[in-house]
Structure formats: C-alpha cells, structure tokens
C-alpha cells in the first residue's frame, strides 16, 4: 500500500472539510466560490477514484482505546466514488441554481460530502459516529438553508433531532462493544461476547433505520423536503439517507452473527418499502413523492442487508443514488423555473424543457423498474436473496416494487400530459406559489443528462457477468442470483402497472397522503409530553427546590430575629434585672447609715440580741 494512496484517503476527507469549512465561514468572494467549490469536488472525485483502486487503510490513535481509522474495502470502493460523483454533479447544478449566500451553501455541501466520505470509509465505531453526527448537523444547516423561513428551520430541527434519537443507538453500540471485549473496530464487532453482541446489533440497527428514514422514523424525510432541491438530491438520495442502508450492509456479518437481526432487518426494510411505497403513490407534491420513494427504495437496501446480499444492496444503493439525484435535480430545475413542485402545476413540463424532460423520463422509468434500466436489475438482485430467505418476504418485495412502478408512473403521466388550451390557466395558477424564473440553464441541464445515462446503464452491475465480480469484491460469499423468470416477471409487472396508472387515477388515501400520521404521532407521544414535563420540572425547580432554599434562608433570618429579640428580652433583661436588684440592695443597705449615734446603738443592740438568740437556738 503506497504512501500516495494513504495520503489520498486522508485528503479525500480533509480536503472537502477544510475547503467547506472555510467557505462556510466566509461571507465575501461569491464570484470565486463556485470555482473553488467545483475544483474541490472534482479533486475529491479524483481522489475517490485513487482510493477505490488502491484500497488503502489509515489509522491514528483516537480515544477509548480505538483508532481514528479509515479503510477502503470493496464496499467502500463502490460507494465513495458514487458519493463523490453525485456531489460534483449536484454542485454543478447548484452553481446554476443557488444565487444567494453561495459561499455558505457550497461550504456546507462540501462539509457534508467530507463527512459522507468519512462515514463510508470509517473502520471503527468512534470514527463512524464522528462522521455520522456531522452528517446530521450539516443536513440540519442545509435543510434550514433559507433561515428566514421558520418552517424550514423547524424542518431542520425535526430532521436533526429525529435522526439523533436514532443515533443514540450508536452510542449504545459503542458502549456494548467496549464491554463486549472485542474492541471498537467495525470488522471485529461479530467477535464480541454474545450478550453484548445483541445490544451492538440492535443499536446499530436503530441508528441505521433513523438515517435511512425507515419506519418509524420516516417522517423527518418528509419535513426535510423544505430544503433546497440540490440538498435533497445529495443528502436525501445519494448520501445521507443512503448511508443508513450502507451501514447495515457494512455490518451484515454482525447481523448474521446474532441470529435474529438479519430477519428483523429484512422485514423492517420490506415493511418500509411497502408502506412508504403506498405513501409515495398518494403524494400530490413531486418532492414529497420522491422523498417517500427514497424511503421505500432504501427499504430494499435494508432488506438486502437483512437477507445477506451485500453486493445486491450496494448496487441498488448506487443505482438508486443516480436515479433519485436525477429526479430531485429535475424537480429543482422545474421548481426554480415555474415556482412550483405540486404535481398539478407540473403538467406537461417535459414538453416545455425536453432535455430535462427526457432525462427525468429515463429516471422515472428506471425508478418504475422498467427493463432494461438500472433499478429493474438491482432490485431483482435484492429480491432474489429475499426469496431465498422467505417466500413471504419476496411477495412483499414484489408488491413494493409494483408500488414503485405506480408512483413512478404517476410522475411520468404528469410530465407528459398534454394540457388543453382551456385548462392551462388551472395549471399556471399553481405557479404563483413561489416566483419562478421561467428558464432552465446549462448548469442545470448538464448534470441531469449525466445522471440519466448512469440511471439507464448502472443495471449492468447487477447482471452477469459483472455481478459475480462485484459480489467477490464486495463480500465474501456468493449471493443468490435472480433467475430469468424473476427478472421477466418483475419487468412485466413494472410495465403493466405503469400502463395501468396511465389509464386510471391512482387512489390517494388520507393516511398515505399524511405519511401514515407518523409526525403527528411523534408529536403526540414524544414531543408534547417532553415539553410538558420540561415545563413541570422547571416550575418544580422554581417553586419547590429554589423556594425551599429561599425559605430556609428566610427561616434562618427569622430564627436570628427571634434570637436577637430573646437575647434582648431574656438574656440581657436578666442581666439588667440582676443589676437593678443589686442597685436596690445597695439602696437598702444605705438606709441604716443615718449618721445618728443612738440609732447605731439600737442597731448594735438588735444585732447582739439576735446573736444571742441564735446561739441559744443553735445550741
């Protein structure tokens, strides 16, 4: 392993972080920002290619007996260039779209890209958590990029707090790994003691489900759509959400080693693919539809991790990244051009800007699973493994892929719908929502086309002969391969469903439109009770604890006051009284001193008589 490769791996993380950090803090130089940012992103892509071929590992001591370690294995070699490429394309797109506060936008995006690269290459739990939470924070800042809108800030807050809730699982997993004795390296986790291994697996599973927007955490992704479209294209398709699925693929041996985690994982993924697929079908807003579809597609990746096909999950992840980034960028282009992302306002949009339109069509067809486009093949690679695990799982996966054909079909229909002249006003009424600029520029078109090509052809990764090579590169074992019959069935389903959607309206049930009511449930069950408890405790703190201390102080003062009064009245009074008595005694003693001799004689006689009487009496 050469020094050059190791340096490249460090640079892959440090370069975008440093450039991004500086850009995010500068407020001037908007003109050169784009050049610097694209240069850094391009260099990062080159570095990612270097590390993908050289597969270096680097480590420095970090904490808790673990290293800050990065390593590029087969899986990372696939993912790191994907993330770097999508980052570059999205930044090119953003160069044409984001006009204000460019430095902050590009800076945050590069910071995010750095943390995503670190997540993908992390070899120990502290390194992973380090990158993992920075991704979350960057995502918060990017979702709330237009910070003058309270609603977008709340969306960022929801995303950060929800994903951090799940992240607690990683803290727990790290503790369990330390206790389990096998160390904090990801590769060593399956070697921990059995009891702790369950905790590790559960913790990682929860964290991954949170980031991947799987049930029950999916709702944050819906809110996250408040961010700019390029942000969704990178974070909510190719990188951050994808990293949730990626983590499960990475720890697949651990999941297997527990006995239960694999099955649970695959069923959780399948459930999300199914339910969020239904949610996507019901959406009336393009970005919301894409968001739900992302969660559903990540469900297939999670299913793959649970069913043991690391290679299948990885290629699905890569193909989905290209496809979904493409669709988000197209949605962003239309949003800036027309000022709307509501499906009703996008009727016939593909006819107006054919290049973006045709690219998005390729993306939507791929998403639908139409052969021979990418997601058709990759999804079947996952489903083949599901079939090997359980026919029921396969069935659920098949229904979920039918749903993906339905929502992709819904997009296609809207894009290509001819709008009769008399209905045009209805469509354009939606364009008022936000002022559109009425055009799509070159910066926006180029990345979309590149991604469309990728979305079309990446399926070869999941088809013979490449799939065998890839499986050996990514994982140790061979996964079951999709049989021609399965491939044919799924292609037919996709086609039939897309055609059916073209003919009749799809149902849009309320529960699905509202994302299963997940956010309301979280608000009702978690947020509101917490805020209530916080208020109650704050009142308790003020009225009981603090007032208690004040009362003790006041009581001390009262006791002091009483003591002072008692001191005055009783102690000092007693002294004064004693003095008074003494004085009176003195006055009494002066009385006999009259100075008259006869009285003195009388007194002497009395004393003598008393003395004699005493003597007689005592005798």
């Amino acid at each position, binding site marked *: 392993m050469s020094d050059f490769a190791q340096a490249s791996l460090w640079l892959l993380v440090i370069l975008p972080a440093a450039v991004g950090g500086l850009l995010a803090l500068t*407020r001037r130089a908007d003109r050169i920002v784009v050049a610097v940012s694209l240069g850094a992103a391009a260099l990062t892509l080159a570095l990612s290619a270097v590390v993908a071929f050289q597969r270096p590992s680097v480590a420095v001591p*970090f904490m808790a007996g673990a290293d800050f370690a990065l390593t590029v294995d087969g899986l990372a070699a696939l993912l790191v260039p994907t993330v770097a490429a999508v980052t570059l394309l999205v930044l090119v797109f953003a160069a044409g779209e984001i006009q204000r506060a460019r430095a902050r936008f590009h800076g945050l995006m590069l910071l995010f890209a750095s943390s995503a690269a670190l997540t993908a290459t992390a070899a120990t739990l502290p390194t992973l958590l380090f990158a993992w*939470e920075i991704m979350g*924070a960057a995502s918060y800042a990017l979702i709330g990029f237009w910070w003058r*809108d*309270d609603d977008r800030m709340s969306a960022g807050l929801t995303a950060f*707090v929800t994903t951090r809730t799940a992240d*607690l699982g990683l*803290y727990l997993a790290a503790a369990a790994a330390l206790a389990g004795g096998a160390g904090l390296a990801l590769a060593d986790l399956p070697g921990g003691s059995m009891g702790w291994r369950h905790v590790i697996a559960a913790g990682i599973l929860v964290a991954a489900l949170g980031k991947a927007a799987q049930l029950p955490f999916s709702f944050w992704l819906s809110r996250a759509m408040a961010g700019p479209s390029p942000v969704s294209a990178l974070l909510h398709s190719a990188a951050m959400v994808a990293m949730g699925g990626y983590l499960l693929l990475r720890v697949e041996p651990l999941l297997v080693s527990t006995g239960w985690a694999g099955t649970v994982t695959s069923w959780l993924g399948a459930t999300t693919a199914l339910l969020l697929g239904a949610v996507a079908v019901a959406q009336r807003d393009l970005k919301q539809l894409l968001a739900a579809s992302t969660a559903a597609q990540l469900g297939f990746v999670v299913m793959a991790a649970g069913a043991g096909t690391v290679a299948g999950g990885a290629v699905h992840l890569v193909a989905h990244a290209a496809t979904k980034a493409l669709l988000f960028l197209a949605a962003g282009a239309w949003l800036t051009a027309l000022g709307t992302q509501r499906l009703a306002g996008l009727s016939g949009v593909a006819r107006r800007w054919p290049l973006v339109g045709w690219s998005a069509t390729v993306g939507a067809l791929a998403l639908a699973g139409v052969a021979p486009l990418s997601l058709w093949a990759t999804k079947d690679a996952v489903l083949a493994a599901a079939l090997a695990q359980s026919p029921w799982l396969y069935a659920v996966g098949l229904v979920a892929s039918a749903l993906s054909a339905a929502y992709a079909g819904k997009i296609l229909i809207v894009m290509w719908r001819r709008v009769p002249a008399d209905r045009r006003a209805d469509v354009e009424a939606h364009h008022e929502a936000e002022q559109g600029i009425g055009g799509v520029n070159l910066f926006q078109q180029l990345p979309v086309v590149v991604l469309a090509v990728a979305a079309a052809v990446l399926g070869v990764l999941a088809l013979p002969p490449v799939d065998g090579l890839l499986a050996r590169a990514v994982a140790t074992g061979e996964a079951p391969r999709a049989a021609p019959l399965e491939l044919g069935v799924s292609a037919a389903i996709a086609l039939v469903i897309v055609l059916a959607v073209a003919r009749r309206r799809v149902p849009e049930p309320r529960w699905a439109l509202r994302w299963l009511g997940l956010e309301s449930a979280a608000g009702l069950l978690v947020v509101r009770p917490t805020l209530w408890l916080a208020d109650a405790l704050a009142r308790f703190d003020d009225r009981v604890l603090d007032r208690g201390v004040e009362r003790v102080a006041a009581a001390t003062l009262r006791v002091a006051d009483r003591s002072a009064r008692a001191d005055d009245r009783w102690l000092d009074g007693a002294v004064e009284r004693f003095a008074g008595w003494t004085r009176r005694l003195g006055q009494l003693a002066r009385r006999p001193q009259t100075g008259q001799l006869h009285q003195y004689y009388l007194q002497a006689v009395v004393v003598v008589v008393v003395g004699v009487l005493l003597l007689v009496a005592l005798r």
Partner: protein
Amino acid sequence: MLSLIVFVPLAAALALVGLPRLRDAPTRWAWVAVAAVDLALVIVVWVRYEKPAPGGLAFEERAAWIPGVNSSYHLGVDGFSLPLVAMTAVIFLACAVYALRERHRPRAHAALFLFLQSVSLGLFVAADLILFFVFFDLSLVGMYFLIAGWGHGNRGHSAMKFFLYTFLGSLALLVGFIGLYVAAEPHTFDMPALAAATPLAGRPLAGGLVLAAILVGLAVKTPTVPFHTWLPPAHTDAPAVGSAVLAGVLLKMGTYGFVRIAMPMLPQAWRAWAWVVIVVGVVSVIYGALVALAQTNVKRMIAYTSVNHMGYIALAVGAAGLVAADTTQARTVAVTGAVTQMVSHGLITGALFLLAGVLRDRVGTYDVGAYGGLAAPAPAFATLFAVGAFASLGLPAFAGFIAEFQIFTGSVAVAPVTAVALVGILVTAALFLRALQRVFTGETRGHSIGFTDLRPSEIWSAGPLLLLSLAIGILPRPLLDVIEPASAAVVDLVGR
C-alpha cells in the same frame, strides 16, 4: 514554576491596586498582558511536563506552612490538574480580552479578576487539603464581589445566595477534610500522603460519613441536583466575564474534587456509595436538560445545561466506583471522559456565556422572545453562537463529543442502566436548536432590529475558546495522553 504561575496574577492585582494613577486603557491592556504571560508559563509547563509516577506529582514544590497540623504549602500537577490549569489560564485570558470594553471601574475589575485567577490556579495545583480549602473559599469571595459589584438585575441577592450557599458547602467540605485528618495516622492534610494511606479503609461508617460531608460540599459547588438552585440566578445576574469564569472554572472545582480528593482518599467508601453518585449524576443529566428546555432566558438556559453537563461527570466518576474484574478499561475511559468534559465544558460554556453577554450589552435582555431573525443584522454573532451551541450539544469535531462519547461508552459498559442518561444529549440538542431558531432565524423582529454585530474584542475572546474546543475535538490525543495515565492511576486507587 507553579508558584510563579499562581502568584503572578496576584502580584499584578496588587500592583494595579497600588498604582492609583494608572489610566483605564493601560490597565485593561496590562491585564491582558499578565493573563497572556501566565498562559505562556502554563504552556511551558505543559511542554516540559512528564508523566509522574502513579500517585505522584510533577513540578512539585513544598514548603513548611502550618507544621502544627502537618499542613504544608505543597503544589504539584498531574494528568487531572494540568489540563484544568491550562483551561483556567485560557479562560481568564479570554475574559481579559472580552473586558477590553469594560467601562465600570476597570482597575478594580481587573484586580479582582487577577485575584480570582490566582486562587483558581492555586486550587488546581494545591496538594494540601488546607491549601485547597483556602483557595476554594477565596474563590467564593472573589466571585461574590464580582457579581455584587459588576452584575445587573437582582445582583445583591444573587451574589449573597451564591456566596452563602457555596460557603455552606465549603463548610461541609471542611468537616470532611478534618475527618480525614483525624483518621490519618500520622495526622496530615497532605493529599498524596492521604491518598497513599486511605485513612478510613476499614471503617465503613466513619468513611461513609466523611465521604458524605465531602460529597455534599462538592455537589453544592459542582452543582448537582438538588443543590443547583444558586446557579441560575448567579449566572443571570453576573456580568458576562463573571459567568464565563463561574461556569468555566469555578464549577470545575467541585468536579475536580471528586477525582482529586474523594476517589483516591476514600476508595472503599466511594465504591460503597458509587450508586448514589451515579443516580445523582443521571438525575442531574436528565433534570438539567429538561429544565433547560423550558427556559426562555438565554443565560438561565445555559446555566441549566451546565447542570446537565456536570451530571455527565458525576455519572462517569460514579461508574468508575463500580469495581469489577474485567471493566478496568471501561472505567478508565469513563474517568478520562469526565476530565475531558471538565475542560470541554469550560471552553464551550465559557464561550457561550461570553456570547450571551453580547445580548445584554446591546439591548439589555436575555429573553428569547425579545429577539428573532438576529442572523440578519449580526451574522458573525449568529455563526459563533451556532458553533457554540452545536459544540455544547456534543457534536463531533468538538471537545464535547470526545468527552461525552467516552463518558457514555465507559459508564454504560460498566452499568448498562446508565444508558437512560443518553436522553440528555437528545434534549440538549433539541433545546439548543430551538433557542437558535427563536433568537437567530425567521423574520428579523423585536430587539434584533438594528442589533450591532460582534466587536473584535468579543470575536477574539469567544472565538479562540471555540477554536480550541474544535482542535481538541479533532486532535484529542495531546490532551488525552495527559489525562489517560492519571485516569488509570485513579481507577487503580479506587480498586484498592
């Protein structure tokens, strides 16, 4: 060397008081210069520091002081005290820079601060209980005058409450110290000697009582629930630099006492009562975070997050008392995390309090509801405050993460039930983001309109603290290399 570090500020303070003709501007700069020189000296010590033998101290100095009770002027540093000494010097320098704009009696202000710096540094290098106690109480005196003289709002009451409450705590501490002295044979107040002798080893009742006295004293100062109620008013009414020192340095005197006095000198009692400490820690973590969530005053909010952050430390040192054969590494990690947290909290919360002071300086209120959209008129302020908030909520790449990760992994590995404290980092995340949103984003409204952005003295005081926290967060080894041997040593001592 250590005496020099401790007494240079005091000498400067006396000089400032003794030179009545000095004008304001040179006074302020002289203060900055003295603080900078002191920091430079600390850096020299850090560079030349070599790990002492377990139980020993580096840069030791010893002179007869009160031989009648075997109390000597004994100074020294180890892996626990050195980081805190450095942190103290940094925070006082930041305060000196921040106070370049102080207009109210700057000479007395500077002298008082230099006095506080001396006693704070003295406390962390003291290796004798009486010396420790003297510095402990003098710090209260200094802070009392600072709040009463330069505070605002109901400052007299807050200063009095702070002083009396913590003074009462220090008395409990003194009772404990005397208990240790009486039990030791021969009687002594010397810290290393007491740690080596463990005077109350075979006497669970007496050991428990002495530990209780010490714990109550330290818990008041730290503060942990339920002894924390002096903290919010003291912070709210203290000047910005006062809050920064109070949170950054003075609170650490309590937590430092755990690892320096309670654990090594009373290991058996510590093990017996470890669960009490853990429970107090967990309650402080969750309670502090939740009460902070409900606050609408920025300074009170940060004050309660301090209760939360100090709770993590109590949790970790408590967990270190649960001795079992195969958890030595986990307990060491927990203690290392606790000491890292002391440094981290000092830097981050110090910066946050300095920044919060800007609110008061500009428009006179800390009320969250009075602001909105502040990022528009004050982008630098918004950026620094956001960085501070994320650092405080334990975001990786800042020191807080290094601390909390180790505290949690160590503690949960020893006692899985302490995982409930993880809720704390979630609530802190929510409360900081909520505050950021309310104050800095949205439409610019209320007092935000016409708000002046940070001035250089404000940027160059809070900024470096956050930068240092970033440096520790990314490259923790220089700090952890110092702390870890000391943690291992104290875990050994507790295991006796």
